[in-house]
Every structure is written in structure tokens, then in C-alpha cells.
């Protein structure tokens, strides 16, 4: 059995409390990075992290990019989305195919 965790700022964390997944408030990037490493060690399979925090601890998150577990997924916080999540999807298209054919098509329409 694996666990699910959320790392987010205090306000966002509060909204997830009632959904039954483990919530971890983090104020700044050092706290978020420490928490992330701790969760990885503690058998968390899915870790949601807000884009605001993820932006600052990019290298830590990229460490787990090519591993099957844990799955680290970016979510918007209650202050809205920064578009990092969607640009990551775009990046994997570029990596795989060389050019971005999915998002570009949309731009032309």
C-alpha cells in the first residue's frame, strides 16, 4: 500500500485536508525540499506539489523524473496556475519527437 501526499502552502493544504490524503504545509523552498525528500523515503507514491513551490526546487523534482516511483505531479495553488505543469507536458513532447507538434497546432488555429 502506498500513500499520497500534498506539499503546498498553508491555505492550499487546508482544502485538501478533508479529502483523506496526507497534507504537508511548507512555507519556503528549503522546507518544501526537505519535506519532499522525506516523503520519498517514507513510501509515498504520489506527491502533489504546488507550482509555486515546485518552481523553486526544480532540481530536486527532476531527480525523480526518470524513475517509476514516486510520481511527482504539479498542481496549481489557490493563487492560480503558473503554467509550469502544462509546459512540462510540452517539454516531454519536444524531448520525444524533437518538435512540438501538439501544442503548436493549437497555436495556429
Amino acid at each position, binding site marked *: 500500500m502506498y500513500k499520497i501526499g500534498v506539499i503546498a502552502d498553508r491555505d492550499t493544504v487546508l482544502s485538501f485536508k*478533508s479529502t*483523506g490524503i496526507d497534507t504537508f504545509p511548507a512555507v519556503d523552498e528549503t522546507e518544501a525540499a526537505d519535506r519532499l525528500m522525506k516523503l520519498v523515503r517514507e513510501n509515498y507514491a504520489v506527491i502533489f506539489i504546488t507550482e509555486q513551490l515546485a518552481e523553486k526546487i526544480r532540481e530536486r523534482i527532476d531527480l525523480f523524473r*526518470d524513475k*517509476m516511483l514516486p*510520481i511527482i505531479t504539479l498542481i496549481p495553488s489557490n493563487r492560480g496556475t503558473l503554467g509550469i505543469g502544462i509546459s512540462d507536458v510540452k517539454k516531454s513532447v519536444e524531448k520525444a519527437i524533437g518538435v512540438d507538434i501538439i501544442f503548436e497546432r493549437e497555436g495556429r488555429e
Partner: protein
Amino acid sequence: MEIRVNPTRMELTRLKKRLVTAKRGHKLLKDKQDELIKKFLDMVKQNKLLREEVECELVGAFKSFTMARSQMPANVVEESLMIPSARVSINIRKENIMSVNVPRLEISREEGKNLFPYGLANTSAEMDSAIRTLSAMLPKMLKLAEIEKACQLMADEIEKTRRRVNALEYVLIPQLENTIKYITMKLDENERSSRTRLMKIKEMVMQG
């Protein structure tokens, strides 16, 4: 560019065998790459749609949650959310898509009796609806996590395969072909020189 070898018949057969293997490997890898890209494109389209959907819905849910909080004193909010009503954990299976291991999540949820972990007296109706949306969002968020991971892993694998295909196509196969050509030419040359030698000797013997 060619590989340094002795121009002998044995080397030639060996190299020809290697060339056949390399070509077969190249074809197989190329097929794998095509199939991977096909699967990847399907999946990444799903990923994009799902992400847009999840982001949009989450932002909406956060908004209503913030609204709900503003109508209640902070300590009441904290207190009412202290104990979650459900426990969610997941099981993970591995699935093999074209030799890439991707995770598949199965959610198991221990529902409490009530979706809301608090009494209805002190909390606002907005809070209820925000919590209901967020709980309903969770499976979708996990689906997004699963698909996004699969896309990342597949992108890595496609890159790796492409590198291998290119190495075979542009380095190893031309190298082998050149070397085979070099040996054939060298052997022919040897044969010609020995024939002239023989003819010369024959001539000398005839004269003598």
C-alpha cells in the same frame, strides 16, 4: 571511416554476419520507435486535456473554498477540518507499454460514514460544496499523475531508442559496409597480383 581489420576471408564472413545482425537490429528498433511514438502521441494528448481540466477545476474549487473560509472564523475552519473523514491509499501495478514500465494506480478509499468531517451547524454551505468538489477531483488528479508519469517515462525511452537507431544507421552500418568493401577490394587485388605472378612464372618456365 572503417574498422581496422586484417583483410582475410574469415574477417569478411565475420563482418558480413555482423552487418546482417546490425541491419536486423536497426529495423527492429525503428519499428519499436514508431510504435512508441504512436502510443506516446495518443497519451500526451490525453495528458494535455486532462491537465487543463484538472487545473481549471482545482482553481475553481480553491476559489469556492477560499470563499467558504472567509465566511467562517479561522479557528472554526481549522477545527472542522482537523480529522479527515476518508483515508485514501493506493495500490500500484506495473504495466509494460513497449518495454517501458509505467505505473498504474488503483485507489482504495476507506470512506467514513459522512463525506463531511464536521457538524453542519457551524460551517457554511460553500464549505460543503468545496469539499465535495475536491473529493470528487481526487481520482481525476491521480489519473493525471499516472498519465503524466507514463508520458515522461515514454519520452525518455523514445529518446534513448532514437539515439540507438541513429547510432546504428549513421555509424555502425556504414562502418561495416565500408570495411566489407575494403576487404573485398583487398582480396581481389591479392588475387590479381597472384595471377600475374603465376603468368609470369609460367612464361619464364616456358622460355627456360
